[in-house]
C-alpha cells in the first residue's frame, strides 16, 4: 500500500505530500503522524501541501484532526504551501481550517513552529501572534 513518508528534523516532523490523497491514505497519514509524535516526542509537525492540487472536506478534516491531536500531544502543527486556487476553493467549500496554523512556505513554517514552541524572544513571539 502507498505510504506518505514522515521525516524527523530535530524536534520537528516534516511531511511533504507529493501525491493527491485518497481517503484511506490520508487516514493512514493521520495515524502514522500521531504515533511518530508520541515516539519521537516531537514538538512540531510541518505539513507541506504545495504539490497538492485538491483539498476537499475530508482532507481538510484530516488536517484539522492532525492539528488537534498533535496539540494534545504537546506538538504544534503548521500547514505550508497551499496553492492559491486551493485556498479559494476551500473557503467557498465552507472549510476554514480553524485551529490549523498556516504559512506560505517551508521556511516561514519552520520559523512559525520555532516561535510557537518558544525558541524566540518574547517580542518576536508577539510579532508572530499579530501576524496570525
Amino acid at each position: 500500500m502507498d505510504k506518505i513518508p514522515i521525516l524527523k528534523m530535530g524536534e520537528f516532523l516534516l511531511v511533504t505530500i507529493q501525491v493527491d490523497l485518497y481517503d484511506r491514505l490520508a487516514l493512514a497519514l493521520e495515524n502514522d503522524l500521531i504515533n511518530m509524535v508520541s515516539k519521537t516526542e516531537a514538538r512540531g509537525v510541518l505539513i507541506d501541501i504545495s504539490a497538492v492540487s485538491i483539498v476537499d472536506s475530508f482532507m481538510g478534516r484530516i488536517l484539522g484532526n492532525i492539528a488537534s491531536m498533535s496539540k494534545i500531544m504537546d506538538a504544534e502543527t503548521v500547514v505550508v504551501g497551499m496553492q492559491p486556487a486551493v485556498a479559494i476553493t476551500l473557503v467557498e467549500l465552507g472549510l476554514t481550517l480553524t485551529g490549523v496554523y498556516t504559512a506560505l512556505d517551508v521556511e516561514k513554517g519552520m520559523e512559525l513552529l520555532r516561535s510557537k514552541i518558544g525558541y524566540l524572544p518574547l517580542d518576536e513571539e508577539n510579532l508572530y501572534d499579530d501576524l496570525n
Partner: protein
Amino acid sequence: MMTLTKEKLTILREPDVIFFRNKAKEYAVKIGMSLVGQTKLITAASELVRNMLRYANGGEAILEIVVRNNIKGVRLTFADKGPGIKDVKQAMQDGFSTGKSLGLGLPGAKRLSNEFDLKSEVGKGTTVTIIRWKNGL
C-alpha cells in the same frame, strides 16, 4: 445544450476517485478553464464521488463537455442506486450529515458549481449533476 464528448466511468473503490478527479481535470483543461475553475470542479467532484462510495457503495460517473450559447462547460453526472436521500432540503444544509463527516459535501459542491441538480428517490438512488462553465465565476 449540446454534448461534444462523453465518457462513463464506474466508481467502486477509493482509487477510482483519484482517477475520476484526474479525468475531470483533463476535461476542464481541454476547454481552457481557469486553474481556480478547475480546482473548484474537481473539489466538487471529489465530494460527490465520495458520497456515492460512502452511502451507495459506488455508482456511475459521467463526464461530458457541453456547449450552450457558444460557451463550453464540463458537466459531471453522478448516478447511484443507493438508499436515496430522505430529506433533500436537510441534506443541502451546511453541517448536516448522517455519516460522521463535516456535512459540507453537498452544499459545498453546490457552491463550487455553476449549476447543480439533485434528484433522489428513497430506495431507488440519487443522481447529482453539476456544470462548470469555462467562464464561470
